[in-house]
């Protein structure tokens, strides 16, 4: 394609503007992009023929979405699974169009595609209006800091471009985005499938005076320069080549010049920039935001990865410092988040051990209201407070800036959530203030000391199923092999740690919560923990699992209810049946067996065999 006229002067040569296309599943995002590429003649030769062929094979008319949905499963199911990035040129300006999946199951892939976008097109099916993922995606746009949003009312063909109905949907969406403090740039009635108001103006909506999608895209302003802000460079690594030490990193904002005095955050030391180093580039004494460089410092200090370099001696140019952080969380783990869980907080190249000190409010997606809650559901949004052992240096999150982009990872380095840092959190009053400290001993070191890995085996089953017996025998067998094992037994903890608790659902839940925390501590110390606890409710076990984390293994001690009743080792069934014990599991309150236990130990046969079942499972995990 030849260039017809030059792009706006602020757009630098070859710099791409990423635009993400988001919205509810099936509202036409992929179709829109496919159509856009076709209408602007951006497809390589032969691609269209392939798409026509793929569509025909599945008995469809031309499916523009197949241009993006390159995975077999995507075409077969007609759903986008993962995001795609497609370079695209418009009047000589480079864009990258990101196709994001709309299905809730693939939210993590939507975020992967959207997180670095400078603007978004929110696609809404004009007939269906605002749906759940429309709201979820809008919320995410706010949390990841995308402020420029174009709304496309798609499939307007299906309602004949009816002005009244389109205006109604427009009102809904403006209200939604308004509440999220997102600027709506344009609301465009369109048909992606037919190409109306995509690249060319449609006659079917003669009442519409605004721009086509293509025109709206060309109005997107390039981001403001970050050069004028105070300098920040998180240390990525430190190298030594030919006797010279290089402090390597990418400048997140501001500029640095040879001779500048910098503070090395985290170390509290100062050093002067002796040289701005680049390889195979003319020497230049200054470097600015976005550049990956290496610095030579004087004195020749050795910062750590994660240390933040910033201008020394200028309070106004220094980052914030806090050990309790307020964050807006988007939660990506399949299980809920609860207070007390620990993670690593990654912030640029720094990593900090953090604990969830409080869940301050959870967003109700239906009306975007904030309300207190005990947990953050999967794919949920919340305001939470993180407690850190040491002070964290940070700049609060701001749209379009690299500041405060916190990400939570679990102990296996899996990303479980995004946590943009809003600011320092106030300390709660008196006794409630908690200051967790994290151990500096790495897992591998502990495993080396013990000679084996750690794990928690959470044994659930009816009263009388044989949990304690099996656990105690297993404890003996494993100890004899030199493994470090602890048993947490229901009755035993109730005689001490939990002697204040009864058997109401609330007390049982609290009992489980405490046992889970103790198990967590023991596992952190490198132990193998066998928990023998009825723990009848799936919900309560899920809580324990969340507290314990990846070391959790659910063991179902599977014994027929009649047998438990007959065994009745403590005479409890008999008493319960006489009504002398209220809320007795298996008699007057329910037992919910695990749906997918990691281990099933049959509890009605030979004890030695049951024990072997368990010890085999332990071996597999910790060896």
């Amino acid at each position: 394609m030849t260039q017809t006229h030059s792009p706006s002067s602020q757009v630098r040569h070859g710099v791409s503007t990423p635009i993400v296309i988001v919205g509810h599943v099936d509202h036409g995002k992929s179709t829109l992009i496919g159509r856009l590429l076709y209408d602007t003649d951006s497809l390589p030769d032969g691609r269209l023929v392939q798409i026509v062929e793929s569509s025909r094979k599945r008995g469809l008319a031309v499916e523009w979405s197949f241009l993006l949905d390159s995975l077999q499963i995507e075409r077969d199911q007609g759903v986008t699974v993962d995001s795609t990035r497609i370079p695209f040129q418009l009047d000589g300006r480079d864009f990258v169009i990101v196709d994001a999946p709309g299905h809730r199951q693939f939210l993590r892939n939507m975020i992967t595609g959207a997180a670095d976008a400078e603007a978004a097109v929110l696609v809404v099916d004009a007939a269906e209006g605002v749906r759940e993922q429309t709201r979820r995606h809008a919320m995410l746009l706010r949390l990841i800091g995308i402020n420029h949003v174009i709304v496309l009312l798609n499939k307007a063909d299906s309602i004949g471009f009816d002005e009244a109905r389109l205006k109604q949907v427009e009102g809904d969406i403006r209200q939604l985005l308004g509440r999220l403090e997102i600027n709506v740039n344009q609301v465009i009635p369109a048909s992606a499938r037919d190409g109306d108001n995509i690249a060319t103006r449609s006659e079917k909506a003669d009442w519409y005076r605004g721009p086509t999608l293509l025109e709206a895209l060309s109005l997107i302003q390039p981001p403001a320069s970050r050069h004028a802000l105070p300098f920040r460079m998180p240390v990525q690594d430190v190298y030594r080549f030919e006797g010279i030490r290089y402090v390597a990193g990418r400048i997140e904002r501001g500029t640095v010049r040879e001779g500048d005095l910098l503070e090395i955050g985290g170390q509290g030391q100062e050093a002067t920039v002796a040289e701005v180093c680049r390889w195979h580039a003319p020497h230049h004494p200054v470097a600015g935001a976005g550049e990956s460089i290496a610095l030579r410092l004087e004195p020749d200090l050795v910062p750590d990865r994660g240390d933040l370099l910033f201008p020394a001696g200028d309070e106004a140019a220094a980052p914030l410092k806090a050990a309790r952080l307020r964050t807006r969380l988007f939660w990506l783990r399949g299980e809920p988040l609860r207070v007390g869980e620990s993670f690593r907080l990654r912030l640029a190249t720094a990593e900090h051990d953090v604990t969830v000190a409080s869940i301050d409010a959870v967003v109700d997606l239906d009306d975007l209201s904030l309300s207190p809650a005990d947990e953050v559901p999967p794919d949920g949004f919340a305001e939470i407070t993180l407690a850190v052992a040491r002070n964290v240096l940070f700049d609060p999150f701001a749209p379009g800036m690299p500041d405060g982009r916190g990400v939570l990872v679990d102990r296996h380095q899996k990303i479980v959530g995004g946590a943009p840092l809003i600011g320092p959190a106030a300390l709660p009053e008196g006794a409630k203030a908690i200051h967790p400290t994290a151990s500096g001993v790495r897992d591998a070191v502990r495993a080396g000391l013990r000679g084996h890995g750690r794990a928690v085996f959470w044994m659930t089953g009816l009263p009388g199923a044989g949990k304690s017996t099996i656990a105690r025998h297993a404890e003996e067998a494993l100890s004899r092999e030199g493994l470090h094992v602890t048993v947490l037994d229901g009755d035993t903890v109730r005689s001490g740690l939990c002697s204040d608790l009864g058997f109401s659902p609330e007390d049982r839940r609290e009992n489980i919560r405490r046992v889970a925390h103790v198990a967590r501590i023991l596992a952190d110390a490198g132990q193998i923990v066998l928990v023998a606890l009825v723990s009848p409710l799936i919900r309560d076990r899920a809580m324990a699992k969340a507290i314990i984390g990846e070391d959790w293994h659910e063991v179902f001690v599977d014994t027929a209810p009649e047998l438990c009743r007959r065994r009745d080792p403590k005479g409890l069934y008999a008493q319960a049946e006489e009504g002398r014990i209220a809320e007795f599991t298996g008699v007057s309150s329910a037992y919910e067996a695990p749906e997918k236990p990691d281990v099933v130990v049959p509890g009605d046969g030979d004890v030695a065999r049951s024990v072997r079942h368990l010890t085999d499972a332990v071996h597999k995990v910790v060896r």
Partner: protein
Amino acid sequence: MALEDAHIMDGLDQLEAQSIFILREAYRKLKPLALLWSLGKDSNVMVWLARKAFMGHVPFPVMHVDTGKKFPEMYAFRDEYVKKWNLDLVLGECPPVEDMDPSLPPAARSAARKTAGLANLIDQHKFRGVVAGIRRDEQATRAKERVFSPRGAGHQWDVRNQPPEFWDQYATPYEEGMHVRVHPLLAWRELDIWRYIEREKIPLVDLYFAKDGKRYRSLGDQDITSPIESNASTVAEVIAELETSRTSERAGRAMDHESEDAFERLRVAGYL
């Protein structure tokens, strides 16, 4: 302000800075790390970027998985630049093509051979990070890739279940036997590669430049790559040619065209 200012970065500067950042992350987080050097234009750019990242050094091995079917010019190029760039070269061999699944079409079988050679080399050296020069614009399934793409034991790409990746935070392996493919060139387009080669004066094998009206746009094995009609005999002429071209780069690669999902299946099995 009379003093000099920081450069205003153009598109190539931004791509370069991001690739350097990625390579530095890989070197820090994935040990041992190696870089796949296919001797083609993209992997030469990648070696060059590594030298940018590490002040003229490549502080990890470069692997060449030798199919034994490369062009003689490529072997000569390899031997020359191993010395000039002071590279720690690790060579891997591929099993004979007869050992591959005979039900595969011929080009796919040849690719499977390369995949097997790569897998052996990674397992043998227990590499946890492997830097590879694929780009999103080459092929539609590559457009779905992550910068850090974890591979399970058996090197499978779990394309339906990729980890989240945002704000420059990358997944690092968490189980024995896993490794991570690192893709520092994912965001580059073919034209960017050529413009960067021009700007940095990065050496290439002559096969990329026209002789008797033909040149290679992409270099695979001799038996499965075909040249295109072209008179572009310098980097500048190649750039000019690409600016008006409408065919895709891999058009000359047979394996991409054998069936609708041929390439996806190759990649899931561990192909680049």
